[in-house]
């Protein structure tokens, strides 16, 4: 089983996000980019599949600051091959990213492609189904469990309310991972550092970043709360008293 996992980096929401002077993009000066958390789950799911049934796991990511760390971390978890797509990916949308991934995936010929179901900065769809379109492969998203048998995969797809649909998907296919079967594992820093010495990141050049298919952003702004909550202040005791008052007013006490 040959598994390809595609990851991208997204803004870290822990940081305060600001808009740059153009008014149509995030200010990258203050941005910290981290692995998309769903992609992290995709890596975990891929490693779990390898541990269960063998195979080779290749992790592919665009060349964005911090990507080496992400790839070496994946290697420390058990990924066999690391591929970085070189090019200028600043401000590149998912359509272009999916097309860039397509070239690499065609070379890898994987049986299964995993990626995060969504990312916090998706504005033109998410990478998984876009890629499935480019490769003319089936796509199923919101996956929280995968099992593999000859040429097929059985996946657990999540619906609202906790309902799960078990679906059979013919391989090769693209799966959008919502949650791996277990939370992503911890990798010790020394293990990542060791990978930096022992493993190599292969490079591929992007073959023209085609952004066609995404929207043009006219304005980007920070969300203002339409109606902002009435803030209760004071000591814990005072706040608790105020809350009890509200509970009474609303008739639950």
């Amino acid at each position: 089983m040959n598994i390809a996992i595609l990851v991208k980096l997204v803004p870290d929401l822990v940081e305060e996000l600001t808009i740059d002077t153009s008014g149509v993009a995030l200010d990258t000066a203050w941005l910290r980019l981290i692995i998309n958390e769903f992609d992290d789950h995709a890596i975990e799911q891929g490693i779990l599949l390898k541990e269960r049934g063998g195979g080779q796991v290749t992790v592919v990511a665009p060349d964005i600051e911090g990507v080496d760390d992400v790839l070496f971390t994946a290697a420390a978890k058990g990924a066999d091959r690391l591929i970085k797509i070189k090019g200028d990916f600043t401000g590149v949308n998912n359509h272009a990213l999916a097309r860039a991934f397509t070239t690499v995936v065609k070379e890898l010929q994987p049986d299964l492609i995993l990626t995060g179901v969504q990312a916090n900065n998706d504005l033109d769809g998410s990478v998984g189904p876009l890629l499935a379109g480019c490769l003319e492969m089936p796509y199923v998203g919101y996956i929280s469990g995968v099992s593999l048998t000859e040429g097929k995969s059985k996946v657990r797809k999540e619906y609202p309310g906790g309902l799960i649909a078990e679906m059979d998907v013919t391989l090769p296919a693209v799966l959008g991972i919502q949650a791996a079967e277990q939370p992503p594992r911890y990798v010790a820093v020394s293990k990542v550092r060791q990978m930096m010495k022992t493993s190599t990141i292969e490079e591929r050049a992007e073959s023209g970043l085609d952004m066609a298919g995404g929207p043009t952003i006219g304005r980007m702004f920070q969300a203002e709360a339409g109606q902002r909550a009435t803030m209760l202040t004071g000591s814990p005791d005072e706040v608790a008293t105020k809350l009890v008052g509200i509970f009474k007013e609303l008739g639950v006490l």
Partner: protein
Amino acid sequence: MMTYDVIKSILVLLALLVAGGIFFWRIYQLLWVNLRLGQRSGPFKQWGERIKGVVVYVAGQFRLFRVLIPGTGHFFIFWGFLILSLTILQAIVEGLVSFANPHFLLPLIGSFGPLALLQDLFAVLVMVAVIYAMIVRLIVNPKRYLGSHKSQGVMVLMFIFTIMLSLLVMNGIRINLGQDPLHYWRPVSTAVGKIFSGAAAGTQVVIIEIAYWTHLCVVLIFLTELPEGKHFHVVTSVPAVLLRNLDPHGQLPAATDHNGQVGVNTIEQFRWRQMFDFYTCTECGRCQDVCPAYASGLPLSPKLLMMELRDNLKERGAALRTHASNSTTQATQVRPLVGDVISESVLWACTTCFACDQECPLFIEHISPIVEMRRFLVIEGRVGTELQDALANLGRYGNSFGQSERMRARWTQPIQPPIKDARREPVEYLWFLGDYASYSPTLTDVTVKTAEVFRKAGLDFGILYDAERNAGNDVRRVGEEGLFEMLMEKNSTALSKCTYKAIVTTDPHTYNTLKNEYPANGDEHHPVLHYAELLDQLITAGKLKFSKKLGYKVTYHDPCYLGRYNGVYDAPRRVIEATGCELVEMPRHHDGSFCCGAGGGRIWMPEGEIQERPSESRIHEAVKLDKVTTFVVACPKDVTMFRDAVKTTGNESRIEVKDLIELVHAAL
């Protein structure tokens, strides 16, 4: 036909050869073959200090007196053993040369009166101590013995008693028979002899021989059994104390590396000196008695840990010997060490408070093997989700709160004029806050007050703003050595760009690692001070003057990493007194202080199935003090831990937790 005296010589010789052979064979297996499985230790330097330690801690039995009466009992048994070992020597030689002279006396040892008196008296003291020890083991049965080998202890006590008794009987009858020229020097033996004086001389001779053989056999059986149990410390204690760790307590030994695998997974991955500790454990349980994890009902007992490690070392050593001829892989059939012999929950329970290491009379190190095994768990990714979150946050943001480094100095916003940025201008004191003082919303008030006190004292100080990272003390103790190194590198780089005379820390944990583990600090050029030490200096120098006498009746909790690890006990107490408060000590104070339960990374882990939180035990202890209204701490984590404990024990109306700085601030 051979006479009895000739037969006696032959039998003594044979017994000696058999017992000595067994003894030395066992020693050879345990101390040579098994220890050679271990990793390199040393080099051992400072021999003067080491020998001094043997005098104070072995000859003087210094640490044993921390548990006073049993310690005193042990003192007499120990010295009795030394003094009376000469009589054993006499008995053996006497038996060996019996064919030539059945009444042979060793020169000096057998003929020096004062020595005879000393031996006579010590025999009694030892017997009294043994009876007392027997009562302690069988009737008092303190909790610290829980899990120790009771029958083994009792058996050895009976051995000692028998050896003493048989000696007195032998000596007594010899006096009766007029065979002892030193009989004036042996009042006790004389008294014992009186018991038998009515018997016929022939009967008395037979009794002597029975007593002789009992004496010799018990001594030799004891000798062969010595290496197998807790009494092996008779052999190992001198080297254990001699080769004890003389590095600062706060400096954790570096990780062992086994072809890229960091930490310890199998027993032979320990250093041989650590293995030696496993053998040295006497199962006295003093460590168990002071362990906060054990007291709160968690599965860790430092004593049982040592015993399990010792058993595993013997088992694996034997397995490796058996299979040495074919392959070592078969030896792996022995139960795996980490996760099986020592469960993960045992390893994660430790708060690294140092109470066990300090309490051990023989300087056994419990924390360093625990951390070594934690290192292996971390490398394997076998960490709980909460700890994983904390470590991931520390890796990404440099703090366990998962907040941006830019938020680190948010607490400074109301302070005018702004606190100096130590990265931009030289400062006298570089204030290293630590995560809790910087990020915890409940501690902002205390942190701001610290800054105000520093200002009032006219201190030239600055902070690192967003360049500060968690110093890594507890990251290291959790076993994440790589992350610790990363944090240390980042902090060291930031510090190296600053000009300062000294570092002052809010947090004792930060203090410990900066002082003892960061290479560039803790020397005379860049001293590291805890704020209690700095305040003490400022008060002494007259730079910090108080306008009020607070008049509170307070008690003070010694933080582990300030007190036990670094010996800072007096500075905070002097500061408390300077604020006009009356200090009342809790029963457990100074180096006997009881951990709050948050150290060693425990603050990032779920507390598990516990009976009583250590912090709650501590608050119960404090509220028993008469009229004490304030519980003073000198560690940000303590503020959090003990304020919680005051709430959960329902003592809000009786006692209030205050940071030392709050007292100082109030008294200004």
